[in-house]
């Protein structure tokens, strides 16, 4: 038989007891001494936090910025090697005020967008041709793998011969940079489509167009979106290459010019611009990805 005291203060759950050094501890009623149940923890194979942070993706960049700022203030990072972050901001404001910056950004963004559009469209289209038919694969896939082995940079002289030194060459060049990752990921996703769903489509006797729309496209969409993320980045990164050639505008041009005059602060603005534009466009693609792949149940959600 349990005593009244035991009923009121059962040995389980155990009260944590007075904190050391706090002196007399008044026993509390049972309910109050019940430990509050912690929120259900995710399993150890899950991603850790009980809930996702709203702006969690900013944590890494913020830490990097903090390290940079502290290093610059303390003199740990020599300003001749890397200017302080606020130098980049003030230089950026100067460049904005004399109108150079947004002109360059606009020109670059237009080039990147055009290259992205053509590269992505062609990448997905050719991947469908080579991914969904053996003959298409024989025709295109090895050629594209060949191209992958040739550095795109090494093709620049030929591109100048073929397309001149104007905008056509630049947009084509960006398109090539964008095309490759989108092609590879889309092709891979198409060949990886679950055969069970292909069989289902066969027994349903749906038209090829319906098969593409209901089985192939949604099935390959995760791969296409991943390719697009690489492609968007490739579009920005390729600017620095193509804008070395016969240009008087663009972020790449601005960086190259600054390099010639050893203006490390302007170069820094250019680099940060790439970083911000790249991060922003990647974020945009991921937003679209989350929207169109909302049916998925994955570890990342």
């Amino acid at each position: 038989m349990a005593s009244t005291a035991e009923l009121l203060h059962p040995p389980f759950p155990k009260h944590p007891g007075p904190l050391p050094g706090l002196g007399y501890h008044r026993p509390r009623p049972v309910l109050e001494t019940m430990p509050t149940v912690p929120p259900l923890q995710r399993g150890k194979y899950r991603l850790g936090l009980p809930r996702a942070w709203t702006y969690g993706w900013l944590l890494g960049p913020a830490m990097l910025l903090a390290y940079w700022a502290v290093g610059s203030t303390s003199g740990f990072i020599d300003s001749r090697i890397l200017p302080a972050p606020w130098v980049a901001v003030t230089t950026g404001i100067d460049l904005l005020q004399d109108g150079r910056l947004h002109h360059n950004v606009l020109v670059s963004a237009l080039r990147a967008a055009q290259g992205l559009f053509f590269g992505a469209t062609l990448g997905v289209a050719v991947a469908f041709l080579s991914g969904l038919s053996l003959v298409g694969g024989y025709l295109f896939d090895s050629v594209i793998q060949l191209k992958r082995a040739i550095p795109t940079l090494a093709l620049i002289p030929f591109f100048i011969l073929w397309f001149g030194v104007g905008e056509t060459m630049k947009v084509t060049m960006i398109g090539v940079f964008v095309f490759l990752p989108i092609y590879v990921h889309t092709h891979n996703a198409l060949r990886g489509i679950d055969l069970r769903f292909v069989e289902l489509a066969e027994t349903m006797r749906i038209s090829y167009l319906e098969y593409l729309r209901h089985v192939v496209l949604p099935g390959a969409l995760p791969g296409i979106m991943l390719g697009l993320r690489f492609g968007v980045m490739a579009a920005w990164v390729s600017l620095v290459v193509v804008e070395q050639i016969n240009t008087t505008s663009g972020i790449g041009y601005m960086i190259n010019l600054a390099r010639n005059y050893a203006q490390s602060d302007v170069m820094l603005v250019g680099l940060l611009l790439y970083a911000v534009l790249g991060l922003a466009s990647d974020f945009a693609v991921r937003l679209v990805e989350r929207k169109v792949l909302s049916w998925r149940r994955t570890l990342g959600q």
Partner: protein
Amino acid sequence: MSGTMHTGPIVRVRNLVRRFTVKGVLNGLDLDIAPGEFIALLGRSGSGKSTLLRAIADLDHEATGSGDLFVPERISVVFQDSRLLPWRRLIDNVILGLRGSDARERGLKALAEVGLAGRETAWPHELSGGEQQRVALARSLVRDPELLLADEPFGALDALTRIKMHGLVKRLVSIHNPAVLLVTHDVDEAIALADRIIVLDQGVIVADLPNAHHDDDIEQLEHTAATRRLLLRHLGVGHDGRALAPEAVDAAH
């Protein structure tokens, strides 16, 4: 009701030979399926029962073979896994590829028939295994098939869900009245559902039994027990659950 009037069988298989499939072969198999007939196809693994089903469903591209195969126009297949497209909501899975302005309406009706009214906008992963299989059933029946092929459709379900599925299938088949070819390894499932039970061994039919359903409980019990014992012997299992010697199985055939 399917509404189609056939005088002869809707499926006619003559001297069907299939080889070099992943597993199982057919060695000159003959089979007729009458309209509205419910056939359960039993057999040990590798006996060729799935091979036969895939041949009739025209899914055996990798096989070589010969023989004549006449099949109806409208065939639906239910697989062991539900094969719901994870990226389409239930209703869109059910009416996949369905034509006509009333497709959605028909889909909703089919979902209601399997007891999933009101769940049409759910995603497949939100459903239990049994519910997913019910959607797969709705998807196959909404096409008003003349022949329903089912490849161990309840094999992955728990025992209680399976019994409920049996009741549902009986009800739905009596409404839509397709011919059914049910591949199963479950003797009791075959006895509970089929009008005719066929046992396959090494690619040929070794037993072809009518399976009547009796109104009288005692008669039904006796019939079930006798059929069960007979079928198990064909499948190489003795009445005490021991494996039978090959000669004994051959003798049973």
